């Protein structure tokens, strides 16, 4: 039942000719699919070694995202068992297998920068200096992880915003200029929700940008979206206005912005005592002293925000930079 040799040769020649015909078409299609984000770059040897021979075969046979799911499940288990170095490898493998899944970057960065860092900071077996250094190392890992994630997914506003939150966080060695850059990238996607714009404005205030520019933008935010009139924005408005034109009557201006003395004291008090947030404080202390005096609260009274801030500052949880 063997086919004639001549037929086999002709068949092979046709197959090769057909293969040559499709060569450039397939090359063009591959490049185009990669450009559109439909195809990933080839898996590098390092990842193949990490995921093991069997998983590499499965991944290479068109099931990369499935192997990524398993790597992600493994990371969850390592998180439960607090196996941080192993988790580091797993989350990196996951994103190498599936670099366009924002979720994997988000959850991986969160594990590294928040969970692992907190674990080492509170590790009773480490000296305080060593715990601090370890914690910083994991925060840095998390930041780098998020940075890679945003580079791989420039359209993902959530990742850039998560990176901005991490750079802004008082508990994670803040870097305000980088926070501005991250929030700007998030807002530039045009998909981010209004909170990102507010966070961006706060980050710019922290780095000390021109108050006139900031105030103009803040007014624009409040005008275009009245729901953005959240306490932090109102407090920032008070500070920026005080920076540009110090008020003759701080209480009157506070009432004008916050609506009532009661609300002004509550919002400015929270803003003032959250000293780790590193927001500008121009005129806030004066306004609080005046508002508290009108309510009959002495600066050394337990209810006073002035005293509370002093106490918090004296306790210094080790996050102040």
């Amino acid at each position, binding site marked *: *039942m063997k*086919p004639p040799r001549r037929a086999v040769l002709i068949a092979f020649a046709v197959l090769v000719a057909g293969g040559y015909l499709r060569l450039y078409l397939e090359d063009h299609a591959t490049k185009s699919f990669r450009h559109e984000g439909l195809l990933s770059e080839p898996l590098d040897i390092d990842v193949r070694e990490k995921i093991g021979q069997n998983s590499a075969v499965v991944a290479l046979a068109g099931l990369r995202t499935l192997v990524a799911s398993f790597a992600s499940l493994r990371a969850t288990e390592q998180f439960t068992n607090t196996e941080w170095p192993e988790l580091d490898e797993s989350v990196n493998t996951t994103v190498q297998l599936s670099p366009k899944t924002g979720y994997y970057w988000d959850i991986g960065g969160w594990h590294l920068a928040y969970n692992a860092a907190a674990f080492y900071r509170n590790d009773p077996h480490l000296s305080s200096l060593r715990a601090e250094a370890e914690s910083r190392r994991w925060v840095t890992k998390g930041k780098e992880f998020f940075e890679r994630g945003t580079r791989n997914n420039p359209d993902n506003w959530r990742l850039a915003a998560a990176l901005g939150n991490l750079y802004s966080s008082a508990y994670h060695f803040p870097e305000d200029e980088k926070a501005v850059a991250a929030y700007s990238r998030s807002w530039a996607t045009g998909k981010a929700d209004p909170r990102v714009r507010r966070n961006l404005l706060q980050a710019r205030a922290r780095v000390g940008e021109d108050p006139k520019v900031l105030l103009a933008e803040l007014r624009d935010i409040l005008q275009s979206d009245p729901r953005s009139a959240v306490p932090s924005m109102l407090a920032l408005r008070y500070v920026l206005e005080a920076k540009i034109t110090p008020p003759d009557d701080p209480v009157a201006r506070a009432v004008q912005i916050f609506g009532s003395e009661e609300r002004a004291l509550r919002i400015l008090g929270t803003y003032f005592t959250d000293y780790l947030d590193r927001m500008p404080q121009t005129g806030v202390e004066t306004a609080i002293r005046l508002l508290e005096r009108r309510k009959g609260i002495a600066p050394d009274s337990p209810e006073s925000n002035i005293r509370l801030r002093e106490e918090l500052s004296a306790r210094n949880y080790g996050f102040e930079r």
Partner: protein
Amino acid sequence: MSRPAKNRPLNPRRIGVIATHTFTQLVRMKVFYFLAIFAVIVLGSNLFNIQGIGRPDLQGMDVLRMIRSWSLGTMTLFSVVLGVVATALLLPKDVEDRTLYTILAKPVPRLDYLIGKLAGVLLLIFVSLLVMDLLMTGVLTIRTHMLVAEQMERFASWPQADKDSLRAEIMAQGPTWSLHGATLAVFMRSAVIASTALLLSTFSTSTLFTTISCFLVYFIGNFQADARDMYLSSGDGIGPGGRIAGLAVAVVFPDFQLFNVIDGVIEGAALPLAALGTLAGITIFYVVLHTFVSWLVFAGKEF
């Protein structure tokens, strides 16, 4: 008055009869039992509610991605295995059952026979994938709506714009047209592998040899793009020998990596119609080429 020749090739009715018979023959082999396994896998993937700790707005999203990933992964496995094994079985089984002699003794052109057989396998894979797609869509729809309801309740105090943004993000993880497009891409991949198996089975005399070689072709086909790059790139470090080897692999083996666009869809990318059209064009090219080459070999074969 001249009458058309009875054995004129490419007769749709005749091909249809052979395809239907092949389909029935495969159904009798109880391959649809796999659908029950698929249902278990889809429902199982539904239970992996694992992450979202500390990020409540992400809670539950992983389950939707897991359902998509596991469903399309299982569809890929099923369709590739069925495409290879069913096609590799057909010719030897017809020889063994002696049905081939009965068919070829009639005015049935060998091309029609081959096309009919391949069409039967593809029909079976298509029906199976359709059922699996419906199952996946059903589970995904229910889960997506459950998640939207949960999240909307949890973030009831959020401004409407923020809630709308979250809702849109969750819905994008649910059933989409791109997901159905990905199922179609899975089918196209299986069509190429089935036509490859048909080609190999015309050369070989053993089902086992056809099956093993076909899986090897599938595996190498996933590296074909690398081989093509070796040939096309004028980069350093690749000598003439390497380029020729790259060319040989690129022209002989089909490029299965192209069909990995399903990974992009699982990751959330939209599958444009143009991309699906390109894949369809490439699939048709492969199927026609492989069937034609199979016919060249099969036409001269003596039984």
